[in-house]
């Protein structure tokens, strides 16, 4: 699904060069649930930006869903991003004056789908996250957990090949965070590839595999134990 080889990303200002990723190589197979961890400044967000085709990079090769996307134009990256990737952000990023239906509709609008198709997809996505009955509400009328579920519905509506989640429970209390994680696990169980950036080791352990980044490089991999064991550890 995702194959990065020797990716190098440098941020330049007039005074300083910052090497955010240093010849980083990693792969995510189809259907995997991968957690990316690491300390602040390790390059997690840069990795996610590049994986989500939000940023270009200086050097290396990036294959996404079997296609080399290393040198796509800005417009082509937008199209590919819209079709293949769903984003879930830490602070939900819903547009405040659009209701839930309209928020979920945003990425579908850019795909130029027929209205009936869009309506069906939006309804299904909101049904999946349990908010179909509140599609005319504004984001401000929902709790944080509900808002994140709307953001997940928005990511799901486009039927993406891969979900990229950046600290998806970072702004939620533990109860809501648990609900959101269960939702992501259900989505993963239905076959969607998920790449999640997180600081939280307990959440990371719930993924199939952890990738640890330090100084813009992969420092190690670990395969998660059985989910039941993790839940028991969390409860303990």
């Amino acid at each position, binding site marked *: 699904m995702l194959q990065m080889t020797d990716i190098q990303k440098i941020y330049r200002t007039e005074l300083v060069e910052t090497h955010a990723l240093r010849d980083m190589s990693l792969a995510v197979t189809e259907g995997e649930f991968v957690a990316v961890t690491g300390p602040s400044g390790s390059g997690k*967000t840069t990795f*996610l*930006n590049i994986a*989500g085709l*939000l*940023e270009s990079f200086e050097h290396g090769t990036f294959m996404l869903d079997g296609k080399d996307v290393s040198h796509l134009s*800005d*417009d082509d990256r*937008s*199209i590919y*991003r*819209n*079709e293949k990737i769903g*984003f879930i*952000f*830490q*602070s939900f*990023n819903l*547009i405040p*004056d*659009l209701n839930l239906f309209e928020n979920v509709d*945003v*990425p579908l*609008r*850019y*795909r*130029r789908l027929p209205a009936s198709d869009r309506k069906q997809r939006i309804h299904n996505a909101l049904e999946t996250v349990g908010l179909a009955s509140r599609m005319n509400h504004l984001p401000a009328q929902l709790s944080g957990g509900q808002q994140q579920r709307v953001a997940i519905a*928005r990511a799901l509506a*486009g039927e993406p090949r891969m979900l990229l989640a*950046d*600290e998806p429970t*970072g702004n939620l209390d533990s109860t809501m965070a648990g609900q959101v994680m269960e939702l992501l696990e259900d989505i993963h169980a239905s076959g969607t590839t998920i790449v999640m950036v997180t600081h939280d080791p307990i959440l990371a352990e719930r993924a199939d595999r952890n990738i640890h980044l330090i100084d813009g490089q992969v420092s190690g991999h670990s395969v998660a134990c059985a989910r039941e064991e993790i839940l028991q550890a969390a409860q303990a």
Partner: protein
Amino acid sequence: MFTYNVKLAIKSMRRNPMMTTLMVAAIAVGIGISMTTLSVYYMMNGNPIPEKSDKLFAVTLDSWGAIRPFDDDRPERAPHQLPYQDAERLAGLAVGKRQAAMFESSLIIEPANDEEMPFEATARVTTGDFFAMFNVPFIYGDGWDRSADAAAEPMVVLTRQLNERLFGGEDSVGKWVTMNSTRFQVAGVIDTWEPTPRFYDPINGGFQEVNEMFIPFSLTRVLELDSIGSDWGWKAEEITSFDQWLNSEASWIQYFVELDADRDEYLAHLDAYVGEQKKLGRFERPMNNNVYDVMEWMEYHEVVANDSRVLLGLSFLFLVVCLLSTITLLLTKFIGKKSETSLRRALGASRTIIFRQQIVEVAVIGFAGGLTGLLLTSFGLQGIQYLYESPPGLVRLDWVIMSTAIAIAIICSMVAGLYPAWRVCQVPPATQLKAQ
């Protein structure tokens, strides 16, 4: 996508009502000022009779003396009015489809009701062809025919307003009006007719109101009607009687002809006529006869002054200043939308899509500014009408002006929005993630 963008634009405008109001107001004031000026210019410069302006011709003959031309600054120009004797003869020859000799006069009306005082009213003294030539609309009756012209019958055609005053607005055809101690029979009553400019008489004012009534040209001699319009003369002539005045070289009659044929054919007729007159010792200057169609005649008399063009230019400069203010406001507004733009980019919107969305938004703002500007234009035109006491027809807001105002507002706003829209679509899609 366009409808979606319009919907987003309206939501965006509601999000920041104060800034939206300022932008709409800036455009509206610019549009209001420029459209008020443009409306007046357009009315002054418009074709008052487009259906036949190329078939109606004002006639000039160079009857001036040999020593100096009629106009020292433009020696190629002949006097723009004719001596009475020439107008009378040309009308009698009746070459061309129709012809109208005319001048302005005034008569004292003696109302039938003894309680009402006599009053003065202006009259256009002209030939019966005037009404058909200039497409004058009638509510009752019609003009008089050529036999009435020939017989100098005391007929009168009233305007709607004068008919209202004299007969309470009823059908007065066949009734009698006493003027200058002569009984005139009403031949017809015209409907409201305010050609702008008053193309058939720019000499006495292109934006004057239509005279209150019309009477036959042939009555001039019978009733010894004086002109209240302009007259010019070059020859020291002893004039002790009205007949001597009519046979003098003074130029005071305006003459129009309607032609179906080529104007050269009519010019040949004029040259032949003047050739005959030269044999009688008149027309001392070289042959210089001309005909001007309606728009040429407006240009000849500079009905639209150069000052109006300068004012029009200045008002559009003011619109530019208003648009520059709008650009500043748009930049501020669009910078405030950075996070939403970045999110939309992350969710798959290309730069082109974002650019289009912003342009549609400024077009909607422009549309709102245009509508408000039209309201201001309407107030502006009413102000002009009040200040200058201009005829009602001069300052109307028609569909051409309204659609022009909206189009200018939208196009100018879109042009003003190009740079801010370009700036906003440069927002990188990653900003949202980095903000975490």
